[in-house]
């Protein structure tokens, strides 16, 4: 007696195909969409002031450290205080509507509520000054900020990304005097700069063990 219809003979084949295709799609979805490259990269919140790095850092050529003045001295690069903006904007574009929130903040003493873009979790210890004195440039971790109208995340900022560099920092190092230079490449290095990079590499001890970053 036949209980199952003959067509069910295909069941194992269909199941196998379904698992293969479905599993493939599921793997792809997880790898592609659950990765920091998809989740973090490209985050660019709307800021309270239409401040443009392309204008200030690109066109005007202001060095990053003019505004992010603490970056070589402390863990945090810090978004500049209103005072830094008003240094120029007390005389430049004093009537611009786009600068109204900055002037308001200057008069009231309340901070401009910039929205934080790059943020590693609180269980990660990250220090800007160490990386800058080791010769890692802003552009390596933040991309071409001098071309961004609005800052957006350019690199995944994931643990794997940190470790990729820590295991082999050599191609990412540059002379310390070039850390804020957005266009510098290793091919341009002079002999003196090559020697400096070799010295930096010999000195660098980026941590690969857990307690280096999770303190």
């Amino acid at each position, binding site marked *: 007696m036949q209980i199952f219809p003959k067509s069910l003979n295909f069941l194992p084949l269909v199941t196998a195909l379904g698992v293969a295709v479905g599993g493939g*799609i599921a793997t792809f979805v997880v790898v*592609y*969409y*659950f*990765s920091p*490259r*998809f*989740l*973090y*990269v*490209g*985050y*660019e*919140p*709307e800021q309270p002031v239409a401040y443009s790095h392309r204008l200030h850092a690109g*066109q*005007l*050529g*202001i*060095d990053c*450290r*003019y505004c992010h*003045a603490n970056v070589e*001295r*402390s*863990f*945090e690069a*810090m*978004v*500049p*205080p209103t*005072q*830094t903006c*008003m*240094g*120029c904007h*007390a*005389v*430049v*574009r004093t009537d611009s509507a786009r600068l109204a929130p900055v002037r308001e903040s200057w008069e009231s*003493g*309340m*901070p401009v*509520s910039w929205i*934080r873009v790059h943020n590693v*979790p*609180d*269980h990660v210890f990250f220090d800007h000054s160490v990386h800058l004195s080791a010769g890692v440039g802003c552009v390596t971790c933040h991309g071409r900020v001098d071309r961004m109208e609005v800052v*957006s995340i350019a690199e995944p900022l994931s643990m794997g990304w940190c470790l990729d560099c820590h295991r082999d920092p050599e191609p990412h190092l540059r002379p310390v*005097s070039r850390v804020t230079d957005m266009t510098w490449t290793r091919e341009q290095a002079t002999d003196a700069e090559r020697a400096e990079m070799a010295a930096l590499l010999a000195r660098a001890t980026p941590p690969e063990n857990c307690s280096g970053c999770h303190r």
Partner: protein
Amino acid sequence: MRRALTAAALALSLAACQGQTSTEPPIVPVRQMHEQPRYDAQEPGGYFPDGRAMRPHVEHTVAREMEVDLTIDTGLEGQARYVDTIPPDVIDGFRGMPALLARGEDRYGIYCVPCHGALGDGAGMVPEVSGVGTIRPPTFHDDRVRRMPDGQVYATIRNGLRNMPAYRHNVPVRDRWAIVGYVRALQLSQMDGR
């Protein structure tokens, strides 16, 4: 089957690709210990009325990293006289004049060039682009600035002058003296044999 595949393909093509921009905060599936009960730098806090967790400097107090030597800090000797030269303590701190000048050149490039220009002639990008003629800074290469005591140049950086903002909040004390040294070197380089 075909319909399911079409639907899947459509769903995938509707979902964004890697690297596309978004104004929505990143989705973080696992959030354990992401936000710990502490304030990070520049995080908003609820305790003070201005909403800052990090406190600005309170006037008439001395923070640990502040300069305590009044002459070095203000460029003034006694109450009203500018010091003529860079205090020897500062030069020693840099281990000599060459290192001070190198540091000064570097810092001048960051904080001064936008307005004063690389040569110190007042042809920086900011006065040029903004088109405001009145904010064009004076050149360093005339006798008035050449004869200024070092302390006065220092005090100008520290306190600002007319349209120039004060730089004491973003340039540390010793870097300001290094810039003074470099401005002197710039002036010498433009003296045309006098």
